[in-house]
């Protein structure tokens, strides 16, 4: 199925690059002789070199080094690596101060990431419709038509970053995580400043959950159907099955709501997940071993977490989770429900921050402990986009000899391809590639909030292009959109 050479005379439609996702993506649609979409391939060129980049470095430097992997979620990498190096340092249980500081840091990171995605990237699609002009579907129009809403988005993002700065000392490249704990407490003045803001942030979070819910339910049948696929969901849960972003055990929920795996020790993840390599992609394809390569793909991230957990510990978010599932006996499957679930998590983070800030352990108490060093360490957390695995082995000198990272977007790799295929199958009619097709492919991908680059350099405004190719790779027709939003078509 995945080998174009072996597929039955597929034609190729190329969409390059995909708009408003991190990094550069290219979509290739393989058509059969009847011009039906046989397969979608979402090419992500930036996912390479992670492990090589890390190998040979001292393990205690990992929390700092891995932050450079990603410009959007450096804190997630810092924390996952931090958990792994705790194990390398022989530390199983952190002090209360260290654990609470890390959780506060993580809640701030998830909050700012979710806010950025929803307000900057998702809300234009949801507020103005997938088919509206690209000139309209952007943050500027959101500001024009919904200024209060957009302003809150910017301020929520900033609040999350202020938490990161308070805990780590900097908004980026701050270093607070050390083997076995943290290296500093949070300053009382910063606690006071954050405390003064947090109730307002909770109020804004409630508002934005309402917006996400109402936008989804306003056309629920269409949104349920859009790019819909059916898959298991994976995420961490606490000992009671509650939503857990920083620690906990793995749960995999079947599409019918039954649990495929529960309370699975993430240290044993190699017995649960295997990664498949495909010749056409730099990004691997993880799958559940017991389900096999073809059937074992799964989804992670907000939709997976909110579906799979039994409850959320904070009251307002728990009420929204119950609303999310109201009337459903099985998990919601639509990719567009990610947006709604993402905002429920944003509310949870705001509430959790409010609960943590008065805790004296943030400002005093032992910060780190030591243990008997080990050669192998595994750190697993729920990053904004889903479950994130860091796995390291070190030598006698403490240098990394082997590293394996499964980033969240990788776990959603096959799911994104399947969602694209579903959209394209509904939209593509022969060789007629329309802007509508382009829009809908983008909307489907954006629902997953993929972080494709883990790179940061802005190469400038790139033209958006859909290209239809014959079997020899010769373009038959081109549909492009430039940085001003102008559409051009040409036939070869």
């Amino acid at each position, binding site marked *: 199925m995945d080998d174009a050479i072996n597929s039955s005379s597929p034609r190729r439609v190329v969409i390059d690059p995909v708009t408003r996702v991190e990094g550069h993506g290219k979509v290739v649609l393989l058509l059969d002789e009847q011009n039906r979409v046989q397969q979608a391939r979402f090419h992500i060129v930036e996912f390479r070199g992670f492990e090589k980049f890390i190998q040979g470095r001292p393990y205690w430097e990992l929390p700092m080094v891995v932050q450079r992997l990603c410009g959007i979620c450096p804190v997630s990498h810092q924390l996952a690596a931090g958990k792994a190096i705790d194990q390398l340092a022989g530390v199983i249980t952190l002090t209360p101060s260290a654990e609470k500081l890390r959780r506060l840091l993580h809640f701030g990171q998830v909050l700012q990431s979710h806010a950025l995605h929803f307000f900057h990237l998702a809300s234009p699609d949801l507020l103005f419709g997938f088919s509206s002009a690209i000139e309209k579907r952007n943050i*500027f129009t959101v500001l024009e038509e919904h200024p209060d809403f957009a*302003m809150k988005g910017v301020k929520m993002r900033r609040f999350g970053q202020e938490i990161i700065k308070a805990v780590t000392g900097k908004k980026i490249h701050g270093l607070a995580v050390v083997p076995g704990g943290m290296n500093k407490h949070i300053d009382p003045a910063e606690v006071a400043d954050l405390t003064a803001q947090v109730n307002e942030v909770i109020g804004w979070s409630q508002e934005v959950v309402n917006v996400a819910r109402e936008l989804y339910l306003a056309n629920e049948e269409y949104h349920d159907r859009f790019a819909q696929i059916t898959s298991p969901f994976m995420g961490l849960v606490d000992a009671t099955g509650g939503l857990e972003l920083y620690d906990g055990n793995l749960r995999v929920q079947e599409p019918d709501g039954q649990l495929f795996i529960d309370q699975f020790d993430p240290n044993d993840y190699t017995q649960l997940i295997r990664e498949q390599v495909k010749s056409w992609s730099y990004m691997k394809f993880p799958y559940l071993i017991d389900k096999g390569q073809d059937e074992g793909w799964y989804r992670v991230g907000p939709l997976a977490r909110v579906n799979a957990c039994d409850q959320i510990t904070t009251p307002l978010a728990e009420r929204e989770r119950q609303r999310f599932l109201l009337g459903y006996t099985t998990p919601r499957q639509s990719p567009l429900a990610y947006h709604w679930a993402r905002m429920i998590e944003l509310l949870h983070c705001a509430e959790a921050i409010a609960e943590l800030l008065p805790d004296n352990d943030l400002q005093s108490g032992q910060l780190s402990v030591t243990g008997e060093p080990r050669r192998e360490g595994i750190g697993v957390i729920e990053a904004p986009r889903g479950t994130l695995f860091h796995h390291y082995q070190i030598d006698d000198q403490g240098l990394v000899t082997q590293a394996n990272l499964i980033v969240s977007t990788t776990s959603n790799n096959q799911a994104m391809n399947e969602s694209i295929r579903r959209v394209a199958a509904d939209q593509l009619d022969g060789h007629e590639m329309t802007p509508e097709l382009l829009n809908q492919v983008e909307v489907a991908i954006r629902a997953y909030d993929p972080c494709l680059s883990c790179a940061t350099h*802005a190469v400038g405004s790139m033209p958006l292009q859909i290209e239809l190719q014959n079997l020899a790779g010769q373009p038959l027709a081109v549909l492009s959109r430039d940085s001003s939003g102008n559409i051009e078509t040409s036939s070869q």
Partner: protein
Amino acid sequence: MTAAATKHDRPHHLLLAVGNRSRGDDAAGPLFLDRVLPILPDLSSVWHTEECYQLQPELVEEIKTTRSVWIVDATQEFSTGTELATVSPATQFEFTTHALSAASLLALYKKMYGDPVPPTRLLKIGASQFELGAPLSAQTQRNIDLAIDTFLQTIASHSAVDTTSKPACTN
């Protein structure tokens, strides 16, 4: 809209260094900042500096209290030399990233806070390699030297701490 801050409310100039230190020439902005900070001791009280991976929407909050903005970033547009340009607010459609262009960042600021938009300069540093783990290229290292010269000459010629009404040069 929030009322625009007065000049009196904006005592600082903002220097934004953009890039990832671990992606070859993408480190040009942060390395520029490392080099500039020690040689601006007398001006440290009026310069706010920030290192960032990308230009993001919340930076409008930093701009709100600044008299002028410098954005220093690597560019793939050329590999040799530097380019200094003034930036005006413009709504652009970035198709590939969460990040904003400098012009879009100012447009966002203008939408949120109205005029005046602080005078803003974009200092581009020529660059060519951006792979994860790649070293800084020798050419970009030389480009950083040029960029520092350009920066220092420009702020000196504009009295350094009061550039609010003067256009930037382009070289």
